[in-house]
């Protein structure tokens, strides 16, 4: 494995700055991974990691990823909430890495809710 230096981070910083200037607006979508004890035990960290790698691969620089605590439905973890600007938030349950990738592809990129993985479409909004 090649040696990485913190100085290499400068290149990434400059690149991120350039794309942020190109974008010039706020993010289009926010994805929240529920990271309570129940979520972590059910595999939320792997979901988060797979999601971030996929976002990087697809160069989606207008999508924010964040985490939150337990949503109270521990038996349906791992869970994620997808909020597209000006659309009601959608809670997805019983996630796997593959399901998360499909949600990214179908819902975040194409704008179609993946009904078979969704628990509910609600009105509480954080984005």
């Amino acid at each position, binding site marked *: 494995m090649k040696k990485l230096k913190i100085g290499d981070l400068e290149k990434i910083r400059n690149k991120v700055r350039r794309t942020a200037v190109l974008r010039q607006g706020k993010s289009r979508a926010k994805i929240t991974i529920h*990271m309570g004890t129940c979520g972590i035990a059910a595999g939320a960290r792997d979901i*988060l990691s797979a999601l971030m790698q996929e976002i990087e691969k697809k160069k989606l620089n207008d999508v924010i990823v964040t985490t939150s605590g337990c949503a109270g439905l521990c038996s349906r973890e791992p869970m994620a909430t997808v909020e597209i600007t000006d659309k009601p938030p959608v809670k997805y349950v019983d996630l796997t890495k593959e399901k998360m990738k499909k949600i990214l592809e179908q819902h975040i990129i194409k704008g179609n809710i993946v009904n078979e993985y969704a628990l509910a479409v609600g009105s509480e909004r954080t984005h």
Partner: protein
Amino acid sequence: MEDLSLHILDIVENSVAAGATNIEVEIDERITENLLIIKIKDNGKGMDKETLVKVLDPFYTTKKTRRVGLGLSMLAQASKETGGRFDIKSEPGEGTDITAQFVYNHIDRKPLGNMAETIAACLVSLESGMDLRYRHRRNNNEFLFDTKEIKKVLSGVAISNVEVISFLRQYIEVGLNQIAKKEK
């Protein structure tokens, strides 16, 4: 929880929820002494004495969303199962200090797991103004990661940016591999 890195992520999430601005994660692999010590310290809102005595009860929680706690009690159990010990100190307004000590080669000692993934996930959870320091010692070798240093380099670019996180995950992975390699 499958491994200790997931427990650590869970406890750091507690620190974030407690509004800590400084979170310290220390892993000390004292293989020659047959000990693994995990310390997590924060300057969050802390707990009063009454809460502290109840906190290791799996059926205690301050959460409103569910009626069981589990997080701290599971880490305590994981350490005690190896013949190790668990200690928690907390003061309201001062923060919380957790030490979990494991017998390194005990058959029931869970593997450490992927610390690079855990720290990357912690970085996504940190709110602005929160910092995380991660120190990993393996016998005499040490790896140190401090978001204060990283933020200086980033000068304004968010640490939670996917490309930044991806780099930092690899950086930690390489750093940890190096201290393991020096060992051999």
